[in-house]
Structures are given as structure tokens and as C-alpha cells.
């Protein structure tokens, strides 16, 4: 039975979708803003950073890349259990973070360790987090790449997707209520735009003009699901329209474009003009994490064009065209970064392999309840009686 016969006479054909939806409309309305062209040239009007600062951030991108590559190798060697990197997305991570003020809070997703390091987290502390050893600031409680760094106002990472979006908004709201100029920045992938916390975070922020910068690191993939299967929107930035906030789309592989857009968004937020949804268009060159092999779901030819858009390559061309970096300096910088990582690894390996057993029960509550006290005594007695109680498998003893 046709539906019209049940509900009454057929209504006029709905012309709305055909009339209002023009393919390509939002791609035009939210143009991809780029400063550095692929050949490394840039519009002189858009030089957004002094060369020394651009060079400093270039070095951070190189460190971020070298760190990711080294840690992925470490995972393959079985020395760390897991890694989740940001290869190809360094300009997005560092350009956004560098554009914020020191007093601003960062609410990360899980690919922004470059931002934590930029905010002063010692490299050795980050490496200890990957080992979960006695030097880990998280006391071995989180899987690798779930770091937190309070001195840098870099909050704690959660595996559930998008939870940080509403939290960042709440933090910025608190600062606003206290009359303090703090703008929160929060990161998420395009997959997170499907999650309810994305919606509530943006909606609350727009309604209350909360000073927050929402950064979507649109890297094309949510594990194995491509962007097209995540959202039917042509752009992520256009989602801002529905919430009543500003949206911008920027080339996420262009550090200067990302920096400039974030700086604008921060300035608007600090001026009381409310939040911005910033879409950084980039690409996830590697798998989602070391636990997946992208060859199972992604043809290699999709990746190739993005390798030519590499943010580090582009920045190097830019700096060299401006005479701020020559080949010898670049090679020296890369050696220096590798040495820095090697040194951090060495220092991290000097820590005890595990945090002390009592840390298992600390920080659940400010003071342990009787349950935690009793359970600590239980595991201590068990290990004292038979050390196998603290081993991964009986056969290891």
C-alpha cells in the first residue's frame, strides 16, 4: 500500500531538497585557505610569522615527525604496546597550538602530543608515558599516547571520541565566568563530528558565545571509514552555520595558514565574539594507530598525492626560498632532533619498568577509601607470598 493512501491525499512534491541543495555550494562558501603554495612560494602579503618563529615551528614539526617514526618502529619491535601518531598532520597540530596564548588551555584528542611538547612537556616524560614506567606522569594508568601535562595546561586524553569537546567549552565558560581571558582550544577528527558531544559542545558554545576554538583535524579517515561515510556534508566547516557560529576551512598541511586562521579565531573569541569551528583539511598518511593496517581498507594510490602535500616539505621549501634554511642547516637540525629523541629514550629506559604497586590505588579518590586500602594490602601480601602474582603469565616466573 502506498503511503499517500494511508495518510490522506498526496501532498505537493517536496521541492525543498532539489531547490536548496546545490552540490559544491559549501566548497565555494568555505574556500580552502592556503598561504604557502606547494612549491614553497607564498603571497608576500600573507607572511604571518617572522622567519625565526617559522623556523622554530618547522623544527617542532620535524621533531614530531621523527618522534612518530621512531615510536612506530619501537612498537614494531615490541618495546611499546601501541602508538598513535600524527604523520602528515604536523602543521595542523603545531600551527594551531602555537597560535594560542600561553594562558590558554588545550583539550586534546590523541594525536596532539606535539602540542604537549610545545607546551613544555619534557620529551623524556612523553616517552615514559609510552612505556608506562616509573617516570610516567600518568603513573602507568593509561595506554600510550594518553598523556596529560598540567604545567602546560594540556588536559587529559580520553579514548571515547569527542568527550573533550564539551569539556573544553565548559573550561572556557568557567574562565568567562571568572572574568579571565582564557580561550580554550580543542581537537577532534572528522569522525568525532558524528558524536553527540561534538553537537552539545558546539551548540552550548554558540548559544553562550563561549571563547573556544574547535579544531577539526579532518584527516579523511575514522579508522577504516572514509570521510564520505562519516558525514554527507561537503565540508566540516559548514556545520558551523547550523550552530550559529563562524566556520573556516584551512589547508591543514600549511603551517602558516593554520596559524593565521587559529590566531583569527582566538582573537574573535577573546573579543567576546564567540566560538569558531576551524576545519583543517589534512590527511592521515599512516594507519589510525599501530593496531591497524590501512592496506586492508585503503588503496595506496589514495595516499600518494598527499605525500606531495607534506607539510614539512612545504615549510622547508618556503624557508629555503626565503633564505632562512639551507640544506646543511636542515640536515643538522634533523640530526639534532634524532639525537634528542635518542637521549630521551635512554633517559626513559633508566626508570623502573613499573610504577610502585601502591600507585595502583592512589588518585581514585583524593584519599583512598577502605576498599582501596584493603585491596592494596591484599595485592602486597599476594606478591610477597608469591611473586608470580605480579607477573603477566605464570609461565614467566
Amino acid at each position: 500500500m502506498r503511503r499517500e493512501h494511508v495518510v490522506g491525499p498526496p501532498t505537493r512534491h517536496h521541492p525543498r531538497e532539489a531547490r536548496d541543495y546545490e552540490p559544491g555550494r559549501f566548497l565555494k562558501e568555505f574556500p580552502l585557505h592556503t598561504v604557502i603554495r606547494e612549491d614553497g612560494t607564498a603571497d608576500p602579503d600573507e607572511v604571518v610569522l617572522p622567519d625565526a618563529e617559522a623556523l622554530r615551528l618547522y623544527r617542532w614539526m620535524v621533531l614530531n615527525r621523527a618522534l612518530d617514526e621512531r615510536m612506530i618502529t619501537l612498537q614494531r619491535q615490541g618495546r611499546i604496546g601501541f602508538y598513535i601518531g600524527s604523520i602528515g598532520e604536523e602543521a595542523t597540530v603545531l600551527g594551531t597550538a602555537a597560535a594560542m596564548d600561553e594562558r590558554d588551555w588545550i583539550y586534546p584528542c590523541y594525536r596532539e602530543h606535539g602540542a604537549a611538547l610545545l607546551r613544555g612537556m619534557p620529551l623524556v616524560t612523553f616517552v615514559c608515558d609510552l612505556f608506562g614506567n616509573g617516570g610516567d606522569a600518568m603513573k602507568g594508568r593509561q595506554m600510550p599516547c594518553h598523556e596529560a601535562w598540567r604545567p602546560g595546561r594540556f588536559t587529559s586524553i580520553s579514548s571515547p571520541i569527542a568527550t573533550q569537546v564539551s569539556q573544553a567549552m565548559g573550561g572556557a565558560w568557567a574562565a568567562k565566568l571568572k572574568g579571565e581571558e582564557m580561550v580554550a582550544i580543542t581537537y577532534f577528527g572528522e569522525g568525532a563530528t558524528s558524536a553527540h558531544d561534538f553537537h552539545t559542545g558546539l551548540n552550548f558554545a554558540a548559544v553562550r558565545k563561549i571563547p573556544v576554538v574547535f579544531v577539526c583535524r579532518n584527516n579523511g579517515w575514522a579508522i577504516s571509514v572514509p570521510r564520505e561515510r562519516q558525514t554527507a556534508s561537503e565540508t566540516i566547516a559548514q556545520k558551523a552555520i547550523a550552530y550559529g557560529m563562524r566556520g573556516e576551512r584551512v589547508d591543514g598541511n600549511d603551517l602558516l595558514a593554520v596559524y593565521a586562521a587559529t590566531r583569527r579565531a582566538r582573537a574573535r573569541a577573546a573579543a567576546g565574539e564567540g566560538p569558531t569551528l576551524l576545519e583543517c583539511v589534512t590527511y592521515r598518511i599512516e594507519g589510525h594507530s599501530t593496531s591497524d593496517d590501512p592496506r586492508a581498507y585503503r588503496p595506496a594510490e589514495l595516499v600518494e598525492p598527499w605525500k606531495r602535500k607534506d607539510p614539512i616539505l612545504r615549510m622547508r621549501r618556503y624557508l629555503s626560498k626565503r633564505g632562512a634554511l639551507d640544506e646543511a642547516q636542515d640536515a643538522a637540525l634533523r640530526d639534532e632532533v634524532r639525537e634528542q629523541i635518542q637521549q630521551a629514550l635512554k633517559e626513559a629506559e633508566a626508570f623502573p619498568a613499573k610504577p610502585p604497586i601502591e600507585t595502583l590505588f592512589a588518585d581514585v579518590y583524593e584519599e583512598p577509601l577502605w576498599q582501596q586500602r584493603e585491596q592494596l594490602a591484599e595485592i602486597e601480601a599476594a606478591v610477597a607470598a608469591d611473586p608470580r602474582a605480579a607477573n603477566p603469565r605464570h609461565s614467566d616466573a
Partner: protein
Amino acid sequence: MPTMNIIQAVNDALRIEMRKDPDVVVLGEDVGKFGGVFRATQGLYDEFGADRVIDTPLAEGGIIGTAVGMALYGLKPVPEIQFADFIFPAFDQIVNEVAKYRYRSGGQYACPMVIRTPYGGGIKGGHYHSQSPEAMFIHTAGLKVVVPSNPYDAKGLLISAIRDPDPVLFFEPKRVYRAAKGDVPEGEYAEPLGKAKITRPGNQVTVMAWGSMWHEVDQAAREAAAEGYDCEVIDLRSLQPLDLETIVASVSKTGRAIVVHEAPRTCGFGAEIAALIQERCFLHLEAPVARVTGFDTPFPYTLENEYLPRAPRILKAIREVVAY
């Protein structure tokens, strides 16, 4: 000393803490000008303004996510979830974020807050306005769970909860929101978390409950007394931290225990209490620990009086446990 009901006591506690500490903020749906659907925040908007008594958009996950951000930044948020049944859209934020923040950041951050929510049945609310989800949160390390049964405790425990360094879920028994009246001191006083209250001393059987079920237990104990049974009644008040000492001392004395709650029986908090009693009081027990609880069904509408443990069911359990 003024007489108050639970709603008035909650309101009084919020006002006292907001006056004392400018970082205390209330947020939720309809909590502002309207004063909350149960009127628990009535008048606070007029006194403290829209920046401290915040009407949020309608999204529980967003309310708790906001509160996490606020707490990390140094405010003391007291979010209200309009009915405990609507806490589930915020379940991830509470269980994965609020509860774990201190632990997962190695103690670098904490997000203390008090999540207030009316819970329980008996108000013709059907299953979306009647649930008792306390066990789900007690099961989550990092959260404290408090359930007052009367106005005096509601005020004193809420003040303690707001001052507590850990996140607290504060379940308010809405069935007796207005029916439970009592003397409540003016001004501030704090009832400690983690302390149960023996509301009726006795020697023959220990009957434990919290929230609105305490009223059913009290009635059953009075009826039992008329039949010659000598019940000791404990209002647990604070389920996490739990006053194990009081439970163990009482059951060791009486040799018999009954736990009453209106949440479903399977994996309800009564199961945990029964296990604790078995571990700690086994040699004192004269009878198996009994549970009088809601049933393992969604909360019903028409048959809610059959579902809820009423005094007659509790009285029957008292007779059976003593006769065992």
C-alpha cells in the same frame, strides 16, 4: 528550629554554599528563573544571577561535559539532572570522564562536582521517571554516591558533598521530596559522608535501607515491634564511601540482616552488602542475608505499588529471617 521538607533543605544547602563560596555554580535544564521542575533551585537565580544559576540547553551529556570543564578550571559545579532516568545520556561523561579524571591524569587534574538528581518511583512516573540507578555508579571507582532520606540529612550531606574533593552523585528521593518533613537547623552544618545512622536500635535483626526505602523500613519495623520483633534499622545515607563498620557491628550483634532497595535485585547494591556481611559476619549469622528489592523488570507504571518494596513485604522478610 524551622521545619523543612527535602526540597527546602536542598535549596537551603545550595544557598548556604553559594553564599560562602563564589566558585559554586548550579547548572542544568530549567534550574534558573524557573527554579527547577521540583523547585529545588527556587530563588537562587534571583540571588546569584544567571552566571551562577545557569540554564543550559537540553542535553545531559553536555551538562556534565560542561561541568567537567568548569571543575578542571577551578569552579565547583553542581549540575542537576532533572530525573535520574535522564542521566544515561551523560553516563559516558560521568563514568569515563568525571570518575577517572584524577586517576587517568596521574593526579594532575581533578574534577570534583556534585551531580544532583531526583530518583525512584512511587510518583506515577513510569519507567522514565522512576529509576534507581545508584548501583551503576557505586560500581564505578572514583565516584561517591549519597542518598539522603530526610531533610536534616539532605542539607547536611549536600553541604559535605559540595565541599568534598571528589565527585559525588547525590540521589534525592523524589517520592518523599515534600512528604518527609523535619526539623532542620538554620545556617550551616555538615553531615559526614561515609557515616550511616542507626535510626532504631534493636537486637533481633538488622534492616538496612537508603532514601525513600528507609521510610518503608521504618514503618515495617514499627509494625514488627507491635508483633514482638526487635529490629535495628540503619539508614545507610552514604553508599560510597560505605560505613561498613556500622553494618558489621550491627549484624554481629543481631545475627540477622535484611537489605531493602527499590532498584532491581540482580547486581543491586544489596548484593554487595550481602557479600560483605557474608565475608565479615559469617560466624555471627543465624540466617541467610535477605534482600527485599524492586524486581528485575523495567520500572512499571500501573503496577508500581506491587513493584516497590512496601512495608508488608519487608515485614514478611523480618518474620522469615527471625524464624529461620
